[in-house]
């Protein structure tokens, strides 16, 4: 009886998954992207890329996918329908991560080997600006209103605040050791920055660029040194953040209002980044060492499946698919 009901619910949820979609995962050591069907949780396509693909994101209308091919020193533009590489964008050396300005036209790229943030016009395919930042820039974010870009530098240990109108730095704020990832909250009131070696997430007040909170993590049985926050994502209602903790092999669930850690979810080994399914019911984390993707049930806050992908899965991005199913 219960089984039948469960099967029915499962069937219903599959049928009502109006927002079908795919999760695109870059495999750093395979030079490929694994495309996972967000409903069947199967790898449905594998797409070749340049060398050492890491950061990945889609254009606003999902008609283009941009991939940082770090060791090819290029950002590649791929047609997501065909998997064909359309062209490379000039990106500066060793692009690791990037962020697309809300104007859908300017890519802000962190050039890890060059201590530079490069701004590229994706239509004109040219470099608009290069901004000197700290050593080993990595995290990259642009505010939703488009006014501020932030680069974090791993060795300099700073968030560099860039005025997108002038492409000049207007603030440089220290964070804990080895900052990896930065995101503005949906209302742009806060900037969150994860520090991998420091083991913390720093929350900045955007208006003043001052530290508002610092989130720390503790998992029983896991040494503090191994808790290394990297990628994170907010739920669309802005109440919760999921934070990947690297070699701690857990994702933390953080209350984004109180900054309290509400729980930890066990995932694969060395968890890097993550992406939600189109309906936000599932969260997909890339696990670099175990070479798989963990699928998390967002409501239940537990892992439900792992999906084998290529070697060293790193970046993740969601693509909705119309008319699927």
């Amino acid at each position: 009886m219960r089984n039948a009901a469960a099967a029915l619910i499962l069937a219903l949820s599959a049928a009502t998954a109006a927002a079908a979609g795919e999760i695109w995962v870059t495999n750093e050591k395979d030079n490929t992207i694994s495309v996972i069907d967000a409903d069947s949780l199967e790898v449905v396509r594998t797409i070749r890329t340049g060398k050492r693909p890491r950061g990945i994101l889609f254009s606003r209308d999902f008609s283009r996918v941009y991939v940082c091919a770090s060791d090819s020193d290029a950002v590649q533009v791929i047609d997501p329908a065909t998997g064909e590489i359309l062209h490379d964008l000039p990106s500066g050396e060793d692009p690791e991560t990037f962020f697309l300005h809300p104007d859908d036209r300017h890519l802000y790229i962190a050039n890890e080997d060059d201590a530079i943030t490069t701004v590229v016009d994706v239509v004109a395919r040219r470099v608009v600006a290069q901004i000197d930042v700290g050593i080993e820039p990595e995290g990259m974010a642009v505010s939703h209103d488009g006014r501020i870009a932030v680069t974090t530098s791993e060795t300099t240990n700073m968030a560099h605040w860039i005025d997108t109108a002038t492409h000049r730095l207007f603030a440089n704020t220290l964070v804990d050791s080895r900052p990896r990832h930065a995101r503005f909250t949906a209302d742009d009131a806060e900037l969150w920055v994860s520090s991998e070696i420091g083991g913390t997430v720093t929350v900045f007040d955007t208006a003043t660029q001052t530290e508002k909170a610092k989130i720390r993590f503790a998992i029983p049985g896991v040494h503090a040194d191994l808790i290394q926050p990297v990628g994170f994502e907010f739920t669309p209602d802005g109440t919760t953040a999921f934070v990947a903790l690297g070699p701690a092999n857990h994702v933390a669930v953080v209350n984004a209002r109180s900054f309290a850690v509400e729980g930890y979810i066990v995932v694969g080994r060395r968890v890097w980044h993550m992406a939600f399914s189109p309906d936000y019911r599932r969260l997909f984390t890339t696990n670099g060492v175990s070479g798989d993707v963990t699928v998390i049930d967002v409501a239940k806050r537990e892992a439900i499946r792992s999906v084998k992908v290529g070697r060293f899965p790193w970046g993740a991005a969601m693509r909705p698919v119309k008319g699927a199913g």
Partner: protein
Amino acid sequence: MRWSHVCAAAALASALLAEVASADVSVAVTYLRQEVERPPVLSGLDPVPEDLGLAGAELAQRDNVSTGRFLGHDYSLEVVSVAPGGDLLDAARQALAASPLLLVEAPAADLLAVADLAEAQGALIINVAAGEATLRGADCRANVLHVAPEMGMKADALMQVLQGRRWTDTVMIVGPTAADRALAAEYRRAAAKFGIRIRAEKDWTFDTDLRESTWAEMPRFTQDLPDHHVLLVADAADDFARYVLHNTWRPRPVAGGTGLVADSWAPVVEAWGAAQLQRRFERAAGRKMRGADFDAWTAIRALGEAVTRTGAADPAALRAYLLSPDFALDVFKGRPASFRPWNGQLRQPMAVANDRALVLMAPVEGFLHRVNELDTLGTDEPESACRAFVR
């Protein structure tokens, strides 16, 4: 609204102005080197680079400058190299008159002589070369921090890995120099600590040109050793170890001086962001980064990190911060480095590697410690004879 105020304020100030920059801070460091006559070695393949160590310090100096420009912190690095037989103490006095921050690359006795100068009291000296345990024990000095790993940290890392593999039976070939014998003593101590047996030892006695006779000579030399899992070679100057590998009577792996080697760094470390540091170093120095380069890099970066976090440049404030639990330096090895507050030794993972790949970044999982697993490598607090660090 608030945004436009921020912009206006920023436009008035320098584009690089940072909120944390309160006042301009100037940080001058001297890299003081006592040049030594190195013993001749059999092979001419790997001469010791003249800028060994120094090249790491220079890279870290550039890293610090890059951070400092956002904070109004100014860094300079002066290099003073004293020829063999030269007056190191006079050079040290002059350096200390210019700045109380001193990196020292010198043998243990010279390091102590510098630390005990009247002019050095209140200075902050960082040892980037000498690995002797006594410098961290009975001969420790409050004004000296050690970034160079204690010799025992490397030996412990190696023995942990052997124990982790359950390769518990070893034999050892010991070179003829005092440094070789000191190294062999560390291997014996570490082997006992981690339950590794050294079933027999042989002194290295060859004085022929091994480059042309290893094929015949080495099997005979190793034939009478009892069976073992691993052959250890104590060869501090990298003299003969390379001729042992693949020339032994029994087909066994070699560890210590060649084969499986423990050091603070190796050119094969690539995870934890290390590939970036390797690339930056290679671009700057035109060669691969070695352990001594990494140690000097770490020393300058540690000072830079302390200046960045405290906004201070005086040695007392920097020393206090470096020894505090707040100090956590990213050293591209997966765990932050920090200083042991009881003797001033930097605790950090040790790379146990062969020529082609990292085998493990020690400590090995499962070697537990009540405070920090990194303290399973080297002399731990309860055994320490150091009394100069008041806690």
